[in-house]
């Protein structure tokens, strides 16, 4: 457990929208340099894209931001707070939430329980002693309401009683997003949230993401393969290849940049043209 002072509570709608700032991040696994001197700034209140081919270091960057790996060098800030060296749970309590490429869902539990836990795990983490083990009625209501709002926003209240393990991939993606929403985070990292979704589901998803940013005013950093989604939601895009930042710019710039086509889309993209 961290001995550092507990971060401020972030209950209710977010008033301040901190930026996520990564500076000179390097992550090595043995001899392999997975992320090499990457700096990026994802602003609060907007959606920033992080794209690149498989193995470019996107998820590794995410993991460094959320404390799942130990960077060799570099710093990560959320607003004014430096995150380096703190546990994953501490960063979450500070307001940094995330979803996972492989969807880390509570498969044996219902949709409502999953999403409620999005808030309850945060509340429990902030409490001491018995507060970690038992919920007060007020907290129960708080988690229930947060879950209800998130389900409403994601259009899945009808699934509340379903077991998550039984859902389709598209529904599971929405459950994971709703769970992160219910957490009331101030900044969200979304790791390929649309993979496994069909075109109409992706459109729906884009609408939900835009609505989330508008309503809650939070910032999102989005790792994504689906260019339709990236175009639809991202105001600014960073491109990674072999662990290095090779390009950054607005959505239109990035999608037409030759270097991005060459690195990311490869020869197959040429055939599509």
């Amino acid at each position, binding site marked *: 457990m961290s001995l550092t002072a507990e971060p401020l509570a972030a209950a209710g709608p977010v008033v301040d929208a901190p930026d996520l700032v990564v500076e000179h991040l390097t992550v090595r696994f043995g001899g392999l340099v997975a992320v090499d001197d990457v700096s990026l700034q994802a602003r609060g209140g907007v959606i920033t894209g992080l794209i690149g081919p498989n193995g470019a270091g996107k998820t590794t960057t995410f993991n460094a931001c959320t404390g799942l790996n130990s960077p060799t060098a570099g710093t990560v800030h959320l607003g004014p707070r430096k995150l380096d060296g703190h546990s994953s749970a501490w960063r979450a309590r500070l307001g940094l939430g995330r979803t996972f490429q492989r969807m880390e869902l509570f498969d*044996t539990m219902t949709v409502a329980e999953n999403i409620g836990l999005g808030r*309850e795990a945060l509340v429990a983490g902030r409490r001491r002693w018995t507060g970690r083990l038992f919920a007060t009625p007020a907290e129960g209501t708080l988690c229930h309401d947060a879950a209800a709002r998130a389900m409403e926003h994601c259009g899945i209240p009808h699934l509340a009683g379903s077991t998550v393990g039984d859902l389709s991939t598209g529904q599971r993606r929405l459950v994971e997003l709703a769970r992160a929403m219910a957490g009331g985070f101030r900044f969200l990292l979304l790791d390929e949230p649309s993979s496994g979704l069909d075109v109409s589901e992706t459109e729906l998803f884009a609408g939900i993401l835009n609505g989330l940013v508008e309503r809650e005013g939070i910032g999102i950093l989005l790792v994504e393969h689906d260019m339709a989604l990236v175009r639809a939601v991202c105001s600014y895009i960073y491109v990674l290849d072999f662990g290095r930042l090779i390009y950054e710019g607005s959505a239109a710039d990035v999608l037409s940049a030759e270097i991005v086509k060459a690195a990311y889309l490869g020869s197959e993209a040429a055939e599509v043209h």
Partner: protein
Amino acid sequence: MKTYLPFIVAGLTNGSIYGMAAVGLVLTYKTSGIFNFAHGAQAALAAYLMFEFRERVGMPWPLAGLLSLLLAGVVAGLILERGAYLLASASVAARVTATVGLLVFIQGVLIAIFGSASLPIKAFLPQKLVKLPGVNVRGEQIIIVALVLVAVGGLYLFFTRAKLGLATQAVVDDPALLGLAGTSPTAVRRFAWLVGSCFAAASGMLLAPTLALDARLLTLLVFFAFGAAAVGAFSSLPLTYLGGIGIGIGAALVTKVVGEHGWQGPVQSLPVNLPFIVLFVALLVTPTRKLVERGSQVVRRPLAPLTFSRRTNLVGGAAGLAVAVVVPHVVGAKLPIYITALAYVILFASLGLLVRTSGQVSLCHIAFAAVGASTAARAVGAGFPWPLAVLVAGLMAVPIGALLAIPAIRLSGVYLAIATFGFGLVMQRLFYASMFMFGGTFAIRSPRPKLGGLHTNTDVGYYYVVLGVAVACLALVVLVRRSRMGRLLRAFADAPTAVDAHGTNTNELKVLVFSLSAFMAGIAGALIGPITGTAAAASGVDVGGFDFSVSLLLITVLFVAGRQPVLSAVVGSVLLVVIPSYATGETAQKWNPIIFGSLAILAAIVGGRSLVEWLRSSRRLRERAAEGSPVRARAAVPELSLEGAR
């Protein structure tokens, strides 16, 4: 130096055998992701087969050896490969339980056929002494060391040179890719299990003549391989082999030193426990990133356990309680069995909390109960009132449970299971005999309570005392599961990373659940001793023993009993304690491990569910299979989505 040489030679010989067994273990683990806890049992099987063929049927030893190798190595290897394939996508708990079940099963069969007493076995390799500078060496020792060196060296060369060897290394990393490259992953896996099983069988046959033919001892001795495998981080074959040699020599030298100084007490058992200590330390100091969990990337989604309506729960609970209240008046002289059963309900409930609710495997649960049993007995002896003594017994188990949470924080899945396994053995072999626990006689007086004017020291009276505690413990489990902690634990079992990512530190959760589970197991232990009036470190469930093998039986039975927190505890206890008591004589003792071992394997293969749950869920699984895997299909074709963007 000269006085040490014979010990070094003996250590080198045994170490070579451990090394070979360990290399076989690592090979199968690396290629299939299944850590074979039954590896030692397989070695014992080979040794018994050879004994049977050679000394009872009368075959010459080379033929007997070859035949045993064929059965316990080749045939068993092929069967195990199929089993490993079926388990590939099962949960960690299911994978561990399946091979633990196999261990229990093989050991049970051997004991049922050959008896549990050790049998003398004739050496088959030449015993002639060869004079080397400074030391006399038996021909057998030279042959064993050379044979193992050739076998392990040959395997190593094969790995680094041959195509199938290289492919073996790739198979766990990405079986699909290997299939695309034209090498069948099945062929590779089959090869690995063949070699691994033959190494196990050979080590059993080589080891038996230097000891005696004893199913428990042989199974345990090839667990020496665990320590060696840990030295190689469950990955490097040469390091594993060297680890075996090191452990062999180390154990021999410690024997020498302990003997020389005439040290008494638990330290005498240090040599035989060295590998477990090596195992435990290696697991604690090896960098976590080197302990890659094999095969865990393909785990299928777990299904929710069966749940019942509130009404069913209430009616069922009330009916169960009514039956429990009536029991003393209908079972007659069998009553002590039912008291044991109630204590086991608590034990199963506490194990279920750990394994089923939080998804962590403990293979040392009986050690917590042993701590509780001995503590309660000593506390009552020291004049504590009985209820307080039981409470203290539970509390005493808590720091032990919390201690085990340390490896649990570092390690996950199968490595935690291995660590708990080693921990249980070390507890029994180093501490059971200590004055803090059962003492040198392995037994300690444990009186029944005298509570007020009640006759709680009679069978019937004590039954109701234990019933009360059991009901309280089950209520505690229900309460915990419904509380915030229970929700977080269930969430942790499904997706630990997500719990951390949402703000709750999962390390604290692990310490909590291990402590709580140990507390309840300690209470259960405290209740077991007074049934016979003596808390004893004997083996066997029926006599209220605390042998580590009971831990293995517990987890196999829990898997057969299902996943409902309360019901599975009751069912498990009825299966393990009550039903066998109605079989006559020794039969139950014989059949218990055989039945539960095989059922646990079955239960693990059908998905870690009880059979009822499996039947219900097979429909859902089929639906899911029809849905296919859109995630992979989508990620592979990003260009299509680009087109959609235009």
